[in-house]
């Protein structure tokens, strides 16, 4: 190879896919820039309560990896950043990165949190899925174990930035880190390879008009926050409308998935397992409660998954009803669910206290721009197309650009991590192959 190769990788998206790929490349001896658009890496996995099939908590298994990323000499985390443009080709990409204004000088900020404590302004927390229980402040870090542990000011809510009032955080900050006049700035970096790991979002509940818009009809990630021992309810199961403990809870699988006529034809692949998981965790927290799960099929094909499901049915007495839910609405205190039990051929009506919709996984809309900038091919739903469905599962159509995690298709954590490792190994062989050739020449 005649041209010099920049043996440094860029990873876009700091979910578990991006984190794993970054660690693998960094451990292999190459530099990594990990760009994350929110103030902390971690992605959706850190929002989860406990994860199937082993029911360990992401705080225990993911935060150590996040901290390793933060401390790794080869990893440069650029949080609260987005990709602005990319030019060049494999080995020599020039990337412009937008550093969004945090209004806090991160070199000075020690993460002490005094500003956050004193800030008088509350706003819905993205990390807590905007649940009524867990607002954040206008100056905040999304969660306690955030990496980097720095604060950002939310310009839409901060009193100083919206009305030129307050200014409390600047007064209390012991290191004078607050910069109300900060602006976005652009940095240019050069890298040899790129991994796109922008992840997923959940399809919006409002798209299913047969299900009422009601505070007690929530999606899976909202319920994960309510189940989470370190979440906004400290793991006490409460429903959003009135904080009561729900005694009958209904889960609706395939909400928007496997519905080619109106929504998406594909299977989101994690809902069967996480509904079972959430119903189990619910039963462990509310032993008198009853969980119902409406399903089309129960797909538990992973290692230890079927056994997990059997445990849910046998030990936690989850009632599985095979049929779709046609309607959900509030009647007084209750949320009424109209469904069908296709095994008995009977209509079923459940008067529930809380309903959890397993909404379809869709590509994270925040990743749209990245796909455009990189000219990546996607399927009709926006998932990045790999260059061969079987033999090139982490390559995109463009040399030097790889994909990992749910940006490619719905998948669970074990598969995401495996795919991230696969993408990292492609980058490693690209870089080390180049160095070996150079050494020979």
């Amino acid at each position, binding site marked *: 190879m005649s041209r010099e190769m920049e043996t440094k990788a860029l990873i876009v998206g700091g979910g578990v896919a991006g984190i794993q790929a970054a660690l693998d490349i960094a451990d292999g001896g190459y530099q990594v820039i990990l760009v994350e658009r929110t103030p902390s890496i971690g992605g959706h996995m850190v929002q989860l309560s406990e994860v199937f099939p082993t029911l360990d908590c992401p705080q225990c298994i993911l935060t150590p990896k996040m901290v390793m990323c933060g401390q790794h000499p080869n990893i440069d985390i650029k949080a609260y950043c987005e990709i602005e443009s990319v030019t060049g080709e494999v080995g020599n990409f020039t990337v412009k990165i937008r550093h969004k204004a945090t209004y806090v000088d991160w070199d000075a900020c020690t993460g002490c949190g005094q500003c956050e404590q004193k800030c008088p302004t509350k706003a819905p927390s993205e990390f807590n899925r905007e649940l009524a229980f867990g607002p954040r402040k206008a100056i905040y870090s999304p969660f306690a174990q955030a990496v980097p542990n720095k604060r950002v000011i939310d310009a839409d809510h901060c009193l100083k930035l919206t009305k030129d009032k307050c200014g409390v955080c600047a007064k209390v900050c012991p290191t004078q880190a607050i910069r109300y006049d900060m602006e976005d700035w652009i940095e240019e970096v050069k890298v040899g390879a790129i991994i796109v790991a922008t992840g997923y979002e959940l399809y919006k509940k409002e798209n*299913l*008009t047969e299900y009422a818009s009601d505070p007690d009809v929530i999606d899976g990630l909202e319920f994960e926050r309510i189940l989470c021992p370190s979440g906004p309810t400290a793991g006490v199961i409460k429903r959003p409308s009135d904080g009561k403990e729900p005694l009958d809870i209904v889960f609706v699988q395939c909400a928007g998935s496997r519905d080619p006529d109106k929504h998406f034809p594909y299977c989101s692949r994690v809902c069967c397992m996480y509904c079972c998981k959430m119903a189990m965790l619910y039963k462990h927290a509310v032993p008198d409660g009853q969980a119902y799960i409406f399903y089309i099929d129960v797909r538990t094909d992973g290692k230890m998954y079927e056994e997990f499901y059997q445990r849910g049915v046998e030990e936690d007495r989850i009632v599985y009803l095979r049929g779709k839910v046609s309607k959900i609405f509030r009647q007084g205190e209750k949320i009424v669910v109209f469904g069908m039990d296709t095994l008995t051929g009977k209509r079923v009506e459940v008067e529930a206290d809380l309903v959890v919709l397993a909404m379809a996984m869709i590509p994270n809309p925040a990743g749209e721009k990245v796909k455009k900038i990189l000219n990546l091919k996607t399927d009709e739903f926006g998932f990045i197309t790999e260059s061969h469905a079987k033999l090139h599962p982490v390559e995109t159509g463009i040399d030097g650009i790889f994909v990992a995690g749910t940006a490619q298709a719905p998948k669970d954590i074990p598969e995401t991590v495996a795919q991230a490792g696969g993408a990292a190994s492609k980058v490693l062989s690209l870089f080390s192959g180049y160095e070996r050739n150079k050494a020979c020449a």
Partner: protein
Amino acid sequence: MKIPYYPGCTLKTKAKDFEDSAIAAARVLGIEMEELPRWNCCGTVYSLSSDDLIHQLAPIRNLIRAKEQESDRLVTLCSMCYNTLKRANEFFLADEEKRERIKRYLDDEIPYEGDVRVVQLLELLRDEVSMDAIKEAVKKPLTGLKVAPYYGCMLLRPASIGIDDVERPTVMEDVLRALGADVIDDPYKTECCGAYQTVSQKDVVATCAHSILTSAQGNGAEVIALSCPLCDFNLDNRQKEVQERFNGFHPMPVLYFTQLMAIAFGLDPSVCRFELSYNDPVPLLKSKGLIE
């Protein structure tokens, strides 16, 4: 605006209250609904036949009648007629082979290519008249009248011909709100009224009607508004059976949305033909000061 109007059989008999109030109320908004000089059964009865071609002929003939009036639209009131006519036209447009066969049956008619669009009055109000224009025409706002709209199925299903979102329609709410009514959102507004089960299985219909009516009442409604004579029969007349079967049920009046329009526009209540209602709406309307 002049627009050819297809009444259908029930509007000339049991649902005369729907027709009279609709024509009068539409006129206030500048819509002249001109009855087709000649029309036949909308075809809903034939649709019970198994042959998928023959039952399209009656509805298509009605559309041809509209074309003869040199119109590209035909307005209906009855939800069932709307559904039958609109679906027949869809069927006609969708499949060339079947279209040609239907055309061969209709060789006594002027040429027809599926170019008459079937609209229901609610659609016309929303898309061409506008809610603001309705608001302006109101003389006696229905203030304090708690109305629960009821759509049933024929206006909304299948989705391809529905006049609004199939699961969460709002057009009737918008019209009633423009009239000044207190609109009650009721989750049963798209549930089945029991339809033709009313002929042989009154029990089934009484059960359906009971759920729908008590849900609306539970949410505070005093009156139901709808647009289908069959729904009207099942929700109004069948209250007799509901009362026989369900203890403690309190009857409530059921009206066509056009009757409420006529009242709000300050028209003479005689156009509403309240005498055709099973549950007399007059005491309620009087108590709200809407009629003398």
